[in-house]
Structures are given as structure tokens and as C-alpha cells.
């Protein structure tokens, strides 16, 4: 094999190693499947609406009339008897109540939007495009509503409940007031039932869901306050680990677009020092999606936790991701230091370790880790076989920290090279 062919073969190997290390295939999978899922939802929506295309113009006109009516006519409820599809948008500062001949009611919260179709004798379909809707469906035999919110479908036969769908964060909630509904959608068991006063919360971004009964949660809080350690009756059919998560309270569930999602399970576990459990949760959630969604601070936590569990590859990915996501920040500098330390202590890649410590020292001029980084740099260069630059590092170390923990090693290194002046 010629030298160039050998070099191209090495390039192929190095590229393969880089690819495996980059996690790009995992990341690509997540985003591709998310797009396919949303595309199939849109396709289903188009199929349902194709026969009603002509009604679109009418719906638009209806919207205009509705908007004018809303602006000029005050807060009286809108009585509609839709026999085709209609699109409704509540203004930013007032709810939009919709009353139906059947006695059913829908109230869209400010800023929310929905389409309602097929309101015939027996069935109706509402597509909640965004925001929150309160529904009061009168129970009758053979009457059925279906509420589609993002990828979720709620089947209703007579009940009162509220539902929220925030597409930007893929956050879905259902809060029951009366009766029961059945819900199908990602992450849920088939036909998940939600009944009186229960709150179902699904976060697709964080790959978790919870089903809680606020009454039981309150009782649990009271038991906790009185020192009774009975377990909470928080239900989590597909993810038992979710039981020890902090469940959102009802008010939090009712917040719409600005609602915050509780920290991911692995974060709370890692913060409690449960490294193995945290890593198991990370793997269950999908490493690529955790790497993509975590904040820089959480990425550092992830990397440190991975390092504790000796998952060097994941720790490296997380540290690199911190530096990409938050360059020129304290987190990025800490990641550089940690990468250097890990290359030295775990992987025994001393040349690489020296590069990271150099990076850290270049970026971080004043820090409590600087002394350690300078000492480590000296050792790493020495073990890398670069004695001249190791002596240079030793000299600089002794100038800055003559009594530092690496001072004896630095003096020894320089003593071995008497030709060099201090």
C-alpha cells in the first residue's frame, strides 16, 4: 500500500472515530422522527379537511365577522351551529366563549386558537392549535367529542375539563373537573384514562409524563408535614421513576405559554448525588436529546455525573457540548479544565490533556483552578514527551506558586536540566 493510500485509510478511520464520538446519528434520529411524527399529524389533518376545502373561504369570512363582532359587540358568547370547519382565535386579552346548539361549551383562553369541525348530531372534532381550552360537553348517548392537541387525541363522551397544548415546548396538559376522558398520544399507554380532578402532564421535549390527583397530592403533603412517610399516590403508569419527581401544582398546570417544566428527572437525581440512577434516566430519555436540551450548567452536571460513573465518552461529549453552547463563559472554561483532567487521569492521553490545560489557562486568567491547571500542564507535557515545554511550564509554575503542591516536581524537572536557568 502506498503512503498516500495508507494516509487515506487513516483518514477513514479517524473520520469513523469522530462520527461515533459526535453523536450526530443519535441527534439526527431524534429530529427526523419528530419531524415525521409532526408531518403525519399534518397529513392526517389535511386528509380530514380535504372534503371541506370549499368551506375554508367561508370559515375565513366567518373569522372576519367573528373578529369584528368581538371587537364591536362586547363579551356576549358566540352562538354557532357549525356544520363545517371553523377556525377560532381568542384575542390576546380576552377569552372567546363558544356555545353550541347541543348545549356544549368551549372557552378558548386569551391567545388560544382552535378549529372545530363536524359538529353534527353525534360527533365533533376540535383541533386545539395552541393555548388552553375549557370544554363542557353534555353527556348524551352516542355523543362524542374528540379534541386533538398536537399529537394527542382526547375522546370525550360527557365531561368538563381543561386542556393546554404549547407547540413550542411540546407541552400538553389535561385537568379534569368532572367525568373522565381517554387520551391517546406519544408516551402514553393506549387509551390512557384521566378522571375526576386528575391532572395529566406530558412533556415531549423532556420525554416524561405524570398523572396526579391534586387531592391525593395535598393529602400526601399533609402526611409529609406530619412526619408520616406513606408513599404518594402519584400515578405514573409507564415510568415508575416519575413518582419521585416534583409534580407541578394545579396553578402551574394552568399557566399556558409561559409555563415552566419541572427539572428533568436525571437533573434532580444527579443533584441528589444519585449518579447511577441519573445516568439510567439519561439513557432512558435518550442521550442525544438530553445533550440537545440541557442548559450549559446541566451539561456540566451531566458530564460530572458521567465521569463519576466512568462513562468517559459521554462525559467528553457533554463537556464539548458545553464549550459549543456557551463559549467564553465560566462553564466553558470549567469544561476545558475537566477535559484536561479527564484526558490525564482517565484516558492517559497526555498530549491531549496538555492542550486542554493550555486552553484553560489561555481562557481563564484568574481562577482558583489556575494553580492546579499550571501544575497539571507541566506534568502532562512531561509525560507527552515534550520536555522543553514541560520545563517552561515548570518555570512558570515556580514563579507563580513557589510553594504550590507541584513545586517539588517542578524543581525536580528543572534540576534534571541544569542548563536551563531559573
Amino acid at each position, binding site marked *: *500500500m*502506498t*503512503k*498516500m*493510500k495508507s*494516509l*487515506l485509510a*487513516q*483518514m*477513514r478511520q*479517524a*473520520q*469513523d*472515530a*469522530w*462520527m461515533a464520538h*459526535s*453523536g*450526530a*446519528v443519535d*441527534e*439526527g*434520529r431524534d*429530529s*427526523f*422522527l*419528530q*419531524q*415525521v*411524527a409532526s*408531518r*403525519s*399529524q399534518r*397529513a392526517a389533518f389535511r386528509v*380530514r379537511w380535504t*372534503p371541506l376545502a370549499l368551506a375554508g373561504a367561508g370559515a375565513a369570512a366567518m373569522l372576519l365577522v367573528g373578529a369584528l363582532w368581538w371587537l364591536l359587540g362586547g363579551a356576549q358568547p358566540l352562538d354557532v351551529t357549525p356544520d363545517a370547519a371553523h377556525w377560532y382565535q381568542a384575542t390576546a386579552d380576552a377569552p372567546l366563549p363558544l356555545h353550541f346548539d347541543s348545549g356544549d361549551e368551549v372557552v378558548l383562553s386569551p391567545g388560544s386558537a382552535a378549529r372545530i369541525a*363536524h359538529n*353534527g*348530531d*353525534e*360527533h365533533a*372534532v376540535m383541533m386545539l392549535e395552541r393555548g388552553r381550552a375549557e370544554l363542557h360537553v353534555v353527556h348524551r348517548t352516542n355523543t*362524542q367529542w*374528540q379534541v386533538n392537541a398536537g*399529537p*394527542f*387525541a382526547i*375522546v370525550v363522551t360527557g365531561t368538563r375539563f381543561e386542556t393546554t397544548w404549547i407547540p413550542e415546548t411540546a407541552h400538553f396538559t389535561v385537568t379534569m373537573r368532572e367525568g373522565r376522558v*381517554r*387520551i*391517546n398520544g*406519544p*408516551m402514553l399507554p*393506549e*387509551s390512557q384514562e384521566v378522571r375526576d380532578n386528575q391532572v395529566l402532564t406530558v412533556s*415531549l421535549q423532556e*420525554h416524561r409524563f405524570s398523572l396526579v390527583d391534586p387531592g391525593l397530592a395535598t393529602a400526601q403533603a399533609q402526611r409529609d408535614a406530619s412526619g408520616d412517610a406513606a408513599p404518594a399516590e402519584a400515578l405514573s403508569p409507564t415510568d415508575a421513576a416519575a413518582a419521585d419527581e416534583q409534580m407541578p401544582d394545579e396553578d402551574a398546570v394552568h399557566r399556558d405559554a409561559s409555563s415552566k417544566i419541572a427539572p428533568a428527572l436525571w437533573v434532580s437525581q444527579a443533584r441528589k448525588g444519585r449518579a447511577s440512577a441519573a445516568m439510567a434516566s439519561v439513557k432512558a430519555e435518550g442521550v*442525544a436529546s438530553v445533550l440537545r436540551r440541557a442548559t450549559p450548567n446541566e451539561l456540566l452536571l451531566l458530564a460530572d455525573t458521567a465521569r463519576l460513573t466512568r462513562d468517559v465518552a459521554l462525559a467528553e461529549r457533554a463537556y464539548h457540548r458545553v464549550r459549543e453552547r456557551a463559549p467564553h463563559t465560566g462553564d466553558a472554561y470549567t469544561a476545558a479544565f475537566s477535559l484536561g483532567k479527564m484526558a490525564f487521569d482517565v484516558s492517559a*492521553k497526555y498530549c*491531549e490533556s496538555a492542550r486542554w490545560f493550555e486552553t484553560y489557562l489561555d481562557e481563564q486568567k484568574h481562577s482558583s483552578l489556575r494553580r492546579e491547571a499550571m501544575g497539571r500542564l507541566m506534568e502532562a507535557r512531561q509525560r507527552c514527551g515534550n520536555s522543553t515545554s514541560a520545563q517552561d511550564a515548570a518555570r512558570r509554575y515556580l514563579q507563580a506558586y513557589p510553594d504550590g503542591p507541584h513545586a517539588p516536581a517542578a524543581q525536580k524537572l528543572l534540576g534534571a536540566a541544569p542548563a536551563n536557568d531559573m
Partner: protein
Amino acid sequence: MHSSMRTSQPRTLTPIVLPGDRFGDDDAALLRALKAGDIHAASRFYERYANHIARVLTRILGPDRELADLINDTFCAAYASVHRLKDSAKMKAWITKIAVHVARSCIRKRQRRRVLWFRYESDYSEPLHVPEPADPDVNDALSAVQAVLTKMSLENRIVFSLRFIEQLDLSAVAEACGVSLATVKRRIQRAEGEFAALARKHDCLVERMARTEKWESR
């Protein structure tokens, strides 16, 4: 009333968490399911070809920071046009061609950005390192090869990468590039010449070039 609304059972919606493989190695079944919009098929399709696509893109673009996006672009484009694929036996060649197209478009877009915004291709790439311990000159040589590839004309770069780094056979390169076998042979000859000329400008490649007449190992 829409007939689907009369069922008392709710429509089962697509789960994000996907079940195991139910297509095995049956590409025809996979293609039929893909055309029907089956997300399980999409997942299997991805599992089957993602590593290959990642390799093709990396051979052409090098270690690219946007690789995950480019893989995603390739699969989304394939999924959107899957109805045009008639022969399931050509699935791999078909998606390889899409990946080459995505890589080509990406390079062109970056070339425009270079003119408009002074952003260079190297801004998107990460350094390559061979595992330690290694000859210290190798990493420099790899960087030089990457630099040479970046400077090659687009089509020459693509055929060279696919033929000599990914080591596809000539007919596969022709299919991936959407040209005839004769055209790809001519293009590869030109690409070798261009690579050799550019490589001789790098000291670390000169010696390696001296005794090299042909690149392929087969």
C-alpha cells in the same frame, strides 16, 4: 359526518417511542410501509441507513459540526420523496444519491456564505485525530488532506471522497453522483490530478505523493 368519526375507539396516534423492528431485512415491506406513512418504518429506515449516510456525508464534508442536521436533511428529503422510489432493491443507492445532493448543496451554500459573510468551510469542521499513540505527523497530514479536499472543485471532491476514502466501486460512485460510468471515470481521473497538484503544495504530503500513482486499494 366523516366515517372515521363514527368509531367508538379513538384513533391511535403515533408514539414517539418506537417498538422494535418488524420489517426484518425485507426492503420491499419497508418501502411499502414508508409510502403508507408508517412512522415505525421511518424509524427502521433510519436505523438501517443512518450510519451509511453519516459516512457518506463525512467523507465529502469532513468532520462537520452540522453533521446531525445534514443527516436529518437527507432523511427528511428521502421521506418526502419516497413515493417516487419504485424498486426497493435500489433503496440504498437512492438515499446515497440524496445524501450526495445534500452535501453538494451544503458546500455550495457555504461557498456563497464565504463570499457574502467571510465564513469559511473550516469554520464548520472539527479537527481529526488518530487515536494515540500515533505518528505525530499523521494528524498534520490529515489536516492537509482535508484542506486539499476543500480546495478541490466540487464534483472532483465528491468523486474523489467517495472513491478513495469511502472506497465505493465505480458504478456506485456513478449512481450516487447521477452520472454515467464513463463520466465518473473521466471525473475520477481529473480528481486524481487535481488532488495531486494541490497536495504537492503541502510539505507533509509531498513525500507521500512521490511514489503514488494510484489511490485505490482494489
